[in-house]
């Protein structure tokens, strides 16, 4: 932005750069942006792995010899295995209804589906405590009937489903809207049943968008901390997910173990980013999001 002062940028010498900054300005701006990102985003990621390995590979592996770590991993996988398919089915139903049909109140419905994204994770967990906690709306009824939701798997699944609720739907809705209904109509005129058309025409058309949203949904489901922390009760070996296990280890000053377990989640994040970037690069035309880059 310094041409005005700088004698270097004489327009006549480089007519191609009329709509850009001078080389020096560009280099400086790139430098600032990259340095800022390296310092603020990449360094913390790097720190996870260096801290995890700071006492050598043996200490790193010790973190996974603990049964509590394994129970946390099992619980996280279980929760994701329920929450992600649930959101896939919901996302398919919601996007089918919203993208393929015209009805009043559609934009309100989309806003409501997006709602969980604008609620603090802690509040997302809290609303289930208000319903199912011992002092909650249904609390005494649940106790009378011996049903445990809070501080158990159902509560953790509910909180996870809530925070990941919009992921699949908000990717598939614009994708299906863009694709319209012509191909489905063509399939129907050729004699296909609705289900057959969905399976052979709609699903193949949205497969990459679906995979993309499942990736992001899964990363969030496995990594969710605030909402799950509120509903889990932090019972070691029972209701601790991986992020909660990390928290406990860290608060016990067991840093190497905390970072070792955290490195699992960091690796998941890296894999997610790599696959996400790959999908954006390879199938840009078949995704609703991530097209601009």
């Amino acid at each position, binding site marked *: 932005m310094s041409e005005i002062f700088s004698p270097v940028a004489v327009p006549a010498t480089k007519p191609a750069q009329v709509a850009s900054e001078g080389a020096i300005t560009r280099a400086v701006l790139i430098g600032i942006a990259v340095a800022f990102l390296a310092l603020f985003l990449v360094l913390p990621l790097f720190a996870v792995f260096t801290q995890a390995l700071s006492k050598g590979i043996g200490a790193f592996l010790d973190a996974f010899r603990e049964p509590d770590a394994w129970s946390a991993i099992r619980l996280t996988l279980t929760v994701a295995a329920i929450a992600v398919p649930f959101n896939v089915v919901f996302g398919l139903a919601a996007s089918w209804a919203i993208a393929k049909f015209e009805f009043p109140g559609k934009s309100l419905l989309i806003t409501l589906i997006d709602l969980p994204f604008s609620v603090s994770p802690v509040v997302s967990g809290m609303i289930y405590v208000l319903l199912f906690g011992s002092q909650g709306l249904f609390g005494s009824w649940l106790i009378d009937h011996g049903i445990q939701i809070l501080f158990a798997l159902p509560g953790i699944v509910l909180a996870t489903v809530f925070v990941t609720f919009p992921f699949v739907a908000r990717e598939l809705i614009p994708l299906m809207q863009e694709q319209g209904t012509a191909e489905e109509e*063509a399939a129907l005129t050729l004699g296909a049943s609705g289900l057959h058309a969905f399976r052979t025409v709609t699903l193949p058309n949205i497969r990459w968008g679906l995979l993309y949203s499942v990736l992001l949904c899964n990363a969030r489901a496995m990594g969710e901390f605030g909402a799950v922390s509120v509903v889990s009760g932090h019972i070691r070996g029972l209701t601790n997910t991986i992020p909660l296990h990390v928290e406990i280890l860290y608060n016990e000053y067991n840093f190497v173990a905390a970072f070792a377990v955290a490195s699992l989640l960091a690796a998941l994040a890296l894999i997610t980013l790599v696959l996400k970037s790959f999908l954006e690069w390879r199938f840009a035309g078949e995704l609703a999001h991530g097209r601009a880059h």
Partner: protein
Amino acid sequence: MSSRTAGRTDRPSTAIRVEDVSKTFDTAAVLHDLSLDVRAGELIGLLGPSGSGKTTLLRIIAGLDAPDRGRILFGDDDATGLAVQERAVGFVFQHYALFKHMSVADNIAYGLNARRRADRPAKAEIKRRVGDLLDLIRLSGFGDRYPSQLSGGQRQRVALARALAVEPRVLLLDEPFGALDAQVRKDLRRWLREIHDRTGQTTIFVTHDQDEALELSDRVAVLDRGRLEQVGTPDEVQENPASATVMKFLGDSVEVEAIAEGGRVLVRGRETPVVAPAGTIGPVKLYVRPWQLQLAEPESAHLSGTVRSSYRTQGRQRIEVADAEGRLLAVEDSDGVRYAAGHPVGLRINGGHVFG
């Protein structure tokens, strides 16, 4: 043309009957009590400006939209309540709606593969039929390609083959050549006519292009604002347009103030060769085509004005004349006489139409 005396022999030849169909979208009426008979084996064009309801009519025949009132009959059977899958129509969509993720062969085989196991032809049979259709659309060897690897005209042909594969009762085409450039469009038109002549497939197509409808169709149905204005052979609708709307829609025309008197039509007191409809008396509007105007000496002319410009297009001399009110009239004259701009001329009316 409504020679319905031979009702007995006429009946079996009606492939599709549209009976008093009305359709309203939201609050806008799209079709008003429209009736139309389509004869077996004919190629009929639904012609109309955008918003005339022609695509809606096509979709109602296919079962993609439901009429608010009225019936659709296939032969003698009421098809109004039939689901789109049960109608056995071949529909070619305006933008083809090819399945992007399937090869050309899989696209064509789709309708056969979608059948219940009991009705589905054997794999080898499907393969043979796909091969035959690829030959028909002159794309043999393209079976393994994907739609994105084809040109617009090739996609159009694949869409047609896909629709024909299910051996439909009727072939429905929505603006079949709308998305193609001029030369491809001409070739495909001729080719579609050939295919039709060879297969005898009852075909309805929608278009807003007069030339396309007139060149291709056995009969043309002209629609305007949800109403059927006229049905007839291309010659009939051109020679005897049923209304001013049809007349205007089928080509350039000039509107001239005239007087009808005892079957004759007078312009500025001079007689014209035009015959007024029975019972029409007094001031009328006379519609004249550019080629029905001829340059003439002012004293024997019906109209007068000055030449604005003249140019040659596709072998014809076209002269633009401004009349006394400043309106521009197009005249087509083959005399080959060139007039300079500003030259005063008279115009003689050699034909035209007056509507009751």
